[in-house]
């Protein structure tokens, strides 16, 4: 009801105004197209460091004794995001705190699956742990490798973590192998994204207006990626449709068609029925740069997340900020990678954020 939501908006600032202000301030520090232009002109990582000093990153890179490498840049950027996020999280009140926790769950799922696949390849836990995303860190993380089956994983290790509710459909007795781990990831993700979607819907108001399209897009993106990646595996249509999140715009008809799809053309045919996805699957214009499907999805995601900042009194800005900042880290790492490998021609393949702002 609109009356209810406007009342919520009235009192929004009492609990969450400070954090919203904070996150909007931090959003103003997101690199602009001029910054990217300058970064792309750099010849060494040292130059990049010098330039980043004039941005909100400040002394982030210059305060270390070690030599600058791309992985160091990556971990520093990540640590920076985690610092910002934990500042937000520690000041948050419910329901914003729950909302922020939901953001971390996706990183937790990725960490669990990475640890399982690592354990299958007989890697040492101590070697794997630093590679986990710090936003999805939890106490029981290191014990994940003990589990042999998803059931064991659930009942012994993850039952105390917030991931437990997502295990409802994922419990099975089959041995964990790489394929099974991937299926587990997608099942967990499906449960997670559906739960997040309904959580946002329950909050209602502007938060639902902003977050639902973003999460629906996320669900559909996963559906497309699962379908494209399943070509050439023994996954049956029914198996696939068990992995598709059912909260997206593709639900239900698109999902049914995608489960049957067997090559790229069929996927494209499905996407053509949805104007927002038609663009992504369109053939690139002759002369334009070739972009991977992943990049096109990223571009679309950035666009959606930018829209979140156009409205006030909602939680969407927090999600969008984290996602945009993550994209920014990917961009900087991409440019840094191109700079160190002297691949100047590919340097412009980053995904610009807020292209119009200065």
């Amino acid at each position: 009801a609109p009356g209810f939501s406007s009342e919520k908006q009235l009192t929004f600032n009492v609990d969450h105004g400070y954090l919203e202000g904070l996150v909007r301030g931090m959003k103003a520090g997101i690199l602009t197209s001029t910054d990217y232009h300058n970064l792309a002109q750099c010849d060494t990582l040292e130059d990049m460091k010098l330039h980043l000093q004039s941005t909100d990153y400040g002394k982030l890179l210059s305060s270390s004794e070690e030599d600058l490498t791309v992985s160091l840049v990556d971990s520093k950027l990540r640590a920076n995001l985690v610092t910002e996020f934990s500042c937000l999280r520690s000041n948050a009140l419910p329901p914003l705190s729950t909302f922020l926790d939901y953001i971390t769950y996706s990183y937790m799922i990725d960490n669990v699956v990475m640890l399982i696949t690592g354990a299958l390849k007989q890697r040492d836990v101590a070697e794997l742990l630093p590679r986990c995303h710090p936003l999805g860190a939890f106490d029981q993380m290191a014990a994940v490798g003990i589990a042999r089956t998803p059931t064991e994983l659930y009942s012994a290790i993850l039952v105390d973590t917030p991931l437990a509710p997502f295990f409802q459909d994922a419990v099975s007795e089959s041995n964990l192998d790489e394929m099974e781990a991937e299926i587990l990831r997608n099942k967990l993700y499906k449960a997670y994204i559906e739960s997040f979607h309904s959580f946002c819907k329950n909050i209602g108001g502007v938060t639902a207006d902003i977050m639902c399209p973003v999460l629906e897009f996320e669900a559909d993106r996963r559906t497309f990626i699962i379908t494209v990646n399943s070509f050439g595996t023994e996954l049956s249509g029914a198996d696939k449709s068990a992995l598709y999140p059912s909260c997206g715009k593709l639900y239900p008809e698109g999902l049914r068609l995608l489960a049957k799809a067997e090559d790229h053309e069929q996927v494209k045919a499905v996407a053509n029925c949805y104007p927002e996805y038609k663009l992504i699957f369109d053939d690139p214009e002759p002369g334009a740069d070739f972009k991977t499907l992943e990049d096109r999805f990223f571009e679309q995601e950035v666009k959606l997340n930018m829209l979140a900042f156009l409205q006030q009194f909602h939680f969407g800005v927090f999600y969008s900020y984290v996602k945009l900042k993550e994209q920014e880290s990917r961009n900087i790492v991409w440019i840094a990678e191109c700079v160190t490998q002297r691949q100047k021609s590919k340097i412009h393949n980053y995904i610009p954020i807020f292209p119009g702002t200065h």
Partner: protein
Amino acid sequence: MSSLLRGEEMCLAQLFLQSGSAYDCISELGELGLVEFRDLNPSVTAFQRKHVNEIKKCEEMERILVFMYCIITSLAHSLSLSLCLQEQLQRLEVELGEVTRNKEKLQRNLLELTEYTHMLRITRKFVQRTAEVSVSLCNLHPHFFISGLIQRVKIEAFERMLWRVCKGYTILSYAEVEEYLENPDTGEPTKCVVFLISYWGDQIGQKVKKICDCYHCHVYPYPSSNEERNDVVEGLRTRIQDLHTVLNRTEDYLRQVLIKASESVYTWVIQVKKMKAIYYILNLCSFDVTNKCLIAEVWCPVNDIPTLRRRKSGATVPSFVNRIPTSDTPPTLIKTNKFTSGFQNIVDAYGVGSYREVNPAPFTIITFPFLFAVMFGDLGHGVIMAVFAAWMVLCENNRKLKNTRNEIWNTFFEGRYIILMMGLFSIYTGLIYNDCFSKSLNIFGSGWSVKAMGWTKEQWENNRFLTLDPNVTGVFKGPYPLGIDPIWNLASNRLTFLNSYKMKMSVILGIIHMSFGVILSTYNYLKKYNLYLVFLPELLFLLCLFGYLVFMILYKWLAFSAKDSRHAPSILIHFINMFLMQGDGLQPLYPGQTGLQIFLVVIAVLSVPVLLLGKPVYLYWLHNGSHRLGLYRRVRRNSEEELYLMRAHDMEEGSSHSDLSSSGENPTEEFDFADELLHQAIHTIEYCLGCVSNTASYLRLWALSLAHAQLSEVLWAMVMRVGLRMDSTLGVLFLVPVFGLFAVLTVSILLVMEGLSAFLHALRLHWVEFQNKFYGGTGVKFCPFAFSLLPSSFEHDGLL
């Protein structure tokens, strides 16, 4: 004085620096702090400039210094750090880094050993307890132990997971360590728990080990027999002793290294900061054609050029200073001292004056505190304020007061001279208003006598109010020598009397202030026609209308005495009638009043079209009309071509001024009548309406002074009088808290709050009512390159 009034005369100078000595020259200039460098390579981005590498090295050194500073403070040691600075610093860093790493390793080792001893001690108890129970089991299966330490917060989750994973094939017993052990990662003291797990079977053993890893347990080997245990304990004790001695040695060594370094840390920090600043300046310079010389362009006060030349020729390698002509507007420099700087800041906060524009600051020194005091007039409050400010002035060299990080205090401290002047002027106006904490002082004896009225006893008793009549001889013996007569403090019509006085006074002060502003504008007019076509009509408009109002006020004060005060006319009615050009029904103030008033109104009305059209039409005529001026313009154009050639020459040298000098186009070249007319129309409307509204605005002087007086009177009546009314001996004791409350409220409300409000209104009267009559404030402040003004990142780290 002329520099304070108009700002320093500036010139653009070119410095030719030999590349070998450029660094020394710039360092010398930084010590002098006389010149502002212009960026000659604005198109080159920050990381493509010539001395980027040197700047990077400086940053590296800064980082090392910050690192050293961290170590030094962690040892709580006072520290202080030569040329070939970089090598020395790097050597020191390596040394320090190694020693601290060693130290950390040793400390960690020590911690592990302590943990091990704790574990052995505690597990012994477990074994004694469980021995009887597990005897029978021992015989059936091989029996293994894992033992170690875990943080107390994690033990519960640990136990639960152990149970779930091993399905009960383990026995866990644990006990808390009484002491706090240091957490090796964070360094915080934490409570730990010693645990002992006994299990059967190899497979479970692996799982248990993994779970232990997961919860970051510190696992130590568990001795299987009592003899072994005793051996281990004995071994540990000796090793801990050894470690303690090694640790002590390391700390001593570290201390020695740091003491050596601390002798010169501060000078190193300053040197690095200076080096970095110099390389930044070198990046602003461009090379000449031969690449042997650096060229720098600087803004410099004309008076300081000889000083500059002298210093330059003193350097070992000669360098040259050339004055170059320019069409760019130079930055504004107004030299201040500690007294004038506060007032200059008030003016600069509104806008930095354009180059050579008249500077209101010297007049502000007097008018600002005066207008403040008109609103704040109270002798007592003024004395408190002046004493506080005088204390700050006397203690201005006290480092503790100077270097605080309290922003509010710094604001007060920076404005100590302003506050002092405000306090002194408040004492003066307090004397004039005869107000001291809302009471009047009877210093010279009142000029009024009650006795002369000859009231009878009956009259005294039956009337609550009695009127003193100045017309009765002997009652009014002449005015009080200074300010308001103290008898008014008792009068019931005091407010009516003071209101009329203060209102008229604020109008008089306002019109004098504004007229002064208009007169100051003559200093800004470079062309003579402005004087006749702008200044004259402005002044006539102001004086004919509002100047005449002031005249009427003064005339009424002088012309009417107590005798004929009943016939005194209302100035307001007369003033309104002046505009309506009627007034036949009223008795004139003086003969010939109507004629003079009509004359004044006509002049004021006529000055409006002169102000509106005069300047644009004259400029239009100048532009299109006379033939003689065409010649003049051709001459101008020649000089312009020269300028153009010069600029082109500069461009060949690789220093484009295009974006700097684009604003310097010649106005005569692009004369637009419509533009000029519009501009003048806006100015006219603003000025004429402004005269009316600004005069009204000065009434805030009256309003605030009234508010201040009333507030202090209310405070006296509501607080002090309550205490003074108690006539028992207890009243004396009661007076103590009452006076405390009175003092606190006086300072917090009357001094701080009222003071801030009066300050704000005085600021507004200066910025809006006074400065808009003449002050543009569109200049750029001169920022000289001086080491003393260097901002420093070290300050944020608390190093200096």
